[in-house]
């Protein structure tokens, strides 16, 4: 059973993330804790004093936020296996979510991010304190994709071992199939090759890891081309799983352009 934390706000991105989580929960064994972070108004926060005055003020803020999130969940009317009531936290969003992930040891963090023509928002997420320091995989939901195939996206320098281990741990079930894809940047139109040796040993090794877990990938391919073109080819996937990309890694742009949800796997120190 995967225990995940899903961040919710009263907005479109959360609406999509919530629907996707519900869709995912139909197939994999997952339970979710919803969290909403209320950013305090700095002026009011410092003016609210100390002791019971501040505690009363914070309780008022929390109650208001709790009602807003409950209203959001009632409006969405989506069946999600929640562990309990949404948690409402006050403070800097990245810091308090990070603290919550570390404290409760969630297996995955999920949030929505709108698919826009401006990739800066995705780059901002990737370089945020929350994303860089989170100890668990992070799922960024951009759209609802109803396919049953997940792409495992490897590339030069990618930690495919952690990627495969975490993808299997979270996603292995009867209803999801996997494609193994190695991406390499090329300033030309996208090409797909089934010549695994073009990726060195990576695809052979990755296949062995999958087979050891009882999974046979449907397709094993090498994808070359521009990030925009590669992202377009990945749009058919229900989820694109990648190791957490560095700022200079070409996969970062692929993931930024990709309209499908992405799962970013972190280096697993808990193994």
């Amino acid at each position, binding site marked *: 059973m995967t225990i995940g934390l899903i961040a919710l706000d009263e*907005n*479109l991105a959360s*609406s*999509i993330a919530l*629907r996707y989580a519900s869709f995912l929960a139909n197939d994999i064994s997952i339970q979710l804790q919803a969290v909403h972070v209320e950013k305090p108004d700095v002026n009011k926060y410092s003016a609210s004093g100390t002791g019971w005055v501040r505690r009363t003020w914070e309780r008022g803020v929390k109650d208001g936020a709790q009602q807003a999130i409950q209203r959001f969940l009632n*409006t*969405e009317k989506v069946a999600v296996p929640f562990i309990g009531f949404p948690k409402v936290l006050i403070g800097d969003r990245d810091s308090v979510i990070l603290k919550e992930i570390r404290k409760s040891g969630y297996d995955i963090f999920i949030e929505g991010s*709108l*698919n*826009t*023509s*401006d990739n800066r*928002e995705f780059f901002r997420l990737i370089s945020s304190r929350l994303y860089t320091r989170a100890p668990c995989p992070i799922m960024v939901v951009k*759209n*609802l*994709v*109803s396919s049953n195939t997940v792409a495992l996206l490897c590339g030069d320098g990618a930690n495919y071992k952690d990627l495969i281990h975490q993808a299997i741990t979270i996603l292995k079930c009867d209803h999801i199939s996997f494609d193994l894809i190695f991406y390499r940047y090329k300033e030309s139109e996208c090409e797909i090759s089934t010549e695994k040796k073009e990726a060195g040993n990576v695809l052979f090794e990755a296949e062995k890891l999958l087979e050891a877990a009882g999974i046979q990938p449907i397709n094993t391919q090498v994808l070359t081309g521009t990030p925009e073109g590669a992202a377009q080819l990945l749009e058919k996937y229900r989820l694109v799983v990648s190791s957490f990309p560095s700022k200079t890694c070409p996969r970062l742009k692929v993931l930024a352009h990709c*309209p499908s949800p992405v799962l970013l796997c972190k280096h697993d120190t808990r193994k």
Partner: protein
Amino acid sequence: MRIITAFDNHSYSARIVSEVAKLAANTWADMTMLGVQSSATGNTPESALANKLKHYRNDFLAQFDGRELPYDGSADSLEFKKRKDNLWELIGYSQEGDFRKKLLIKIRAGEPVKAILAEASEQESDLIVLGCTKGLDCQWNGQTDLPQRVAKSADCSTLVIKEKKSPDTITCFLDQTYVSQASLEMVNQVVTLYNAELKIIGLTDSKGVGGNEKVETRMAEILRYYADRKINAWIKLVRPEELEEYVAQVSRENMVALWMGKKSLLSKIFSRDLVGKLVNSSQSSVLILR
């Protein structure tokens, strides 16, 4: 809902009959099948077109095989009668009677764009459907610019079906600050008709997505509308200045639906001439929503 489908003598017209019938069956629409001939022929319409229209009517009704038929399907002594100058109507069956929906078969003579728009206006039509040749050369009855002239001049929605395989994706450009219920439903029907995926492209404003709560709220409502109908719509938000290029890019691969209602921001960005250009340059079918 009232649908007018314009026909000429060419194969693309024959091809759209089944699609129009499915659309009519899904929406329980009143239907007008309109044949258009360029030249006046006195008291009777061109016999080739008249025969084609009778044949199209039979094909249309045959699509309801096994399903409840809301139209009169009788076929006794059908003939075109002159209603007024340059307008004939097929009679010999009950156009209204006890049947729940009307099926009118008409032929108009005259300049085709004017004839189609006149019929649409007279019938207070919600949707005009017409087929045309595939690819960049979008012809109807030998005229290269007719579909785009209809699309840009009509007051109601227009669906131009290009002679191509059914689209697997419909990319719908909606102005999310105001979208009519009728437009959302029309898109729903077209998605159902083709069993296609739906992608919704919305506009951000200068503040960007996060800065505009109104845009997000409306977009979330649109997503819920389609989710309730078991349609998983994809979304993408683009800046207004990128829109024209994005539409051009998408229209090379997918069917495009563009909302151009009077209150639409898109209608300010997209001039009517650009609608014509879109119809012409699109590789796939185009739906202009109004």
